[in-house]
C-alpha cells in the first residue's frame, strides 16, 4: 500500500482553498503553510506573464511530495524524519527533531519543509482544526503529514475534501481501483523534478 495524491492542473483555479483548509485543519502557526499554491506566470503570486490580451498563468499547488526515495530522510542525522513502511508516508517526528534544518537543505521541493523560527504564534486565540494533530514545536521543522490523523479516522486529507473543483484526488496507488489510480488512468501526468530521482507520490495531471 502506498498513499499518493493526484492534482489535476486543468481543474485547479488557484483559489487557495486547499492551502487554507490545510492551515486550519492542522492549526498551523503564523508564517507557516504546508501546502502552497505557486504561480507559473508573472513575478508575484497570482499574476500572469505576457501583455494583455496574450496572458498566461498556471497554478501549481505544492506540498510535501511524500517521495518514495526521500532526500530528507537520508539527510536527517537523527532519524527524526522517516518513511512509514506500511503506507509510504514521510513522517516528521517533532519530539526527535534537533532543528538542524539539514532536511530543508536536502529537499528539492523548495519550502515544503518549514522551520519554527520562533515560538508558534497564531492569528486567533483559540486553536483551530482537529484535536488529534500533534502540537507544533518551537525550533523544529514541520511539513505536510498527508493528514495522518484524518486517515486514522477513516477520512481523507483536509485539502482533498475542501477542493471545490475536485482537482485533488487521494488514495492507494497500489490499488488499481482506488480513486487516485482511476484518476491518473489515461491521463498524462508528471512528477515535480522527476530527474532528481526522489520518486514523488504526487501526480500532476495535465
Amino acid at each position: 500500500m502506498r498513499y499518493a495524491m493526484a492534482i489535476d492542473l486543468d481543474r485547479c483555479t488557484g483559489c487557495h482553498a486547499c492551502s487554507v483548509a490545510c492551515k486550519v485543519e492542522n492549526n498551523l502557526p503564523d508564517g507557516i503553510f504546508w501546502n502552497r499554491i505557486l504561480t507559473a506566470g508573472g513575478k508575484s503570486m497570482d499574476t500572469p506573464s505576457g501583455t494583455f490580451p496574450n496572458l498566461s498563468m498556471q497554478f501549481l499547488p505544492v506540498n510535501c511530495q511524500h517521495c518514495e526515495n526521500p532526500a530528507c530522510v537520508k539527510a536527517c542525522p537523527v532519524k527524526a524524519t522517516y518513511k512509514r513502511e506500511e503506507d509510504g508516508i514521510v513522517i516528521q517526528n517533532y519530539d526527535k527533531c534537533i532543528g538542524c534544518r539539514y532536511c530543508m537543505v536536502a529537499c528539492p521541493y523548495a519550502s515544503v519543509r518549514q522551520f519554527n523560527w520562533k515560538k508558534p504564534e497564531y492569528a486567533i486565540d483559540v486553536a483551530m482544526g482537529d484535536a488529534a494533530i500533534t502540537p507544533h514545536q518551537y525550533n523544529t521543522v514541520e511539513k505536510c503529514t498527508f493528514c495522518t490523523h484524518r486517515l486514522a479516522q477513516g477520512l481523507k486529507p483536509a485539502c482533498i475534501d475542501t477542493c471545490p473543483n475536485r482537482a485533488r484526488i487521494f488514495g492507494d496507488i497500489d490499488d488499481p481501483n482506488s480513486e487516485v489510480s482511476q484518476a491518473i488512468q489515461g491521463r498524462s501526468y508528471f512528477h515535480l523534478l522527476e530527474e532528481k530521482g526522489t520518486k514523488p507520490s504526487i501526480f500532476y495531471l495535465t
Partner: protein
Amino acid sequence: MAVVTNTKKTSATNLWTMIFAVFAVLGAVCWVLQLTRGLQMTNLDTNNMWGLYIVGFMIFTGIAAGSLLFSAVPYLFKLEEFKPYTRIASYLGAVASIVAASLFIIVDIGNPERVWLFITSGNWTSPMFWDFIMLSSYMVISIIFTRKLILLNEGKIEEKGVKGIAVVAFVAGILVTVTSFVFSFQVARPLWSTPAQPLSFLIAALVAALAVLMILSHILNKSGYVKMPIGLLAKMGKLTALLLCIELIIVITEILIGLYPGSGEDYAAFIWLVTGKGAVGFWLMMVALVTAIVLLAKQGTLPKVGLLLGGAIIALIAIYLIKSNLLQAQLFNPLITLPGTPVYGETTGPYVPSLLEIGLSLGIVSLGALLLNLGFGKLNLGTTANTRKL
C-alpha cells in the same frame, strides 16, 4: 631586566585572556537570547537556512584537519625543521578547533538539548552523522597525538613511537573531504554537487590551518614561547599561496562553467553571485584571494613578518567568503523559484549575519583562544626553555 620583560609579557597575556573572556561571556549572552527568542534572532530564514554558524563549523573543522596534517607530515616525510612546531599544531587541532567546530553546530541547531540523539539515534545515511563521527575521532586522535608528541619532546619515547598515530592523523586529515559530502551529496543543490568540492574543502582546510598557525607562531614568537625562524614562516606562506592559487582556479572554472550556457539553474545562481545580489561578497572574495596570494608569495630575499601576517589574515577572510558565497549562491537560488503563498522569510539575499550571530560566533572563537592559551600555559608545547611560564 629579564624580570621586567617577563612581567610585561605576562600582563599582555592577561589582557588578552581578559578580552577573550569578555567575548566568550558576550557569546554566552547571545546564545541565551537566541535560545529564549528562537532562531528568528538570526538573519537565517526559509530559503537561507544555513549561514555563519555552518561556515564557522566548516572553517574550524578545516583548521582541525589541517593541523592534523601539519603535525603528521613532518614525521611521515621527514621534514625535520617543522617537527618542533607539531605539538602546537596538534594541540590546536585537538582542543581549540574541535571544540569550536562542535560549538558552532550546537548553536546552529534549534534543540541543542537533543544532541545526544546523534548517539542514540544516529542515521548512517546522513553525511551530517558522518561529520559527527569524524569530529569525535579527530578529538581522540589529536589528544593521543599531542600527548605522544609531548612525550617525544621530553625524551620519554622514541620517534618511531609516533609514526603509527602520525599515519592515522594523516589519513584523518585527508578525510576532511567528508565534510564536503554534507553539501556535495545533495541532489537538491546542484551547485554543490561537483567533484571539485571535496578538493576545495581539503585545500580550504589546509589554508585555514596554515594561516592560523602562522598567526599563532608569530604571537608565540613574540612572547618567547617558541622560536620559529622567519624562513619557516615564509615557507608556510608560500605553500598557502600555492594552495590559494588552486582554490582560485577552482572558483573561476566553476563560475565559467556555470555562466557559459547563458541560462538554466546553475546560470541563475552564478549570475546572482557575480553580478546580482551576491556580487559584493563575490568580488570581495576575489580581491581577498588575489591579495592573499600576492602577499604570501611575493616575499623577496628578506621576508617581512608584517606582510606574511597580513597575508594570513586575508587568506582566512578569503576562505570565509568562499564558503559563505558557496552557501548563499545555492540557497538563494533553489530549484523551484515560482512565487507562491508567502511563508516566513523567503528572502532573495544577500545574507549578512545578524549582530547576535556575529557576537555568538566571536564568543566561540574566543573560547577556542582561551583553551589554546590554557594549553600553552599548562602543557609543554613550546620550543624554548621558558615554555611553561607563558
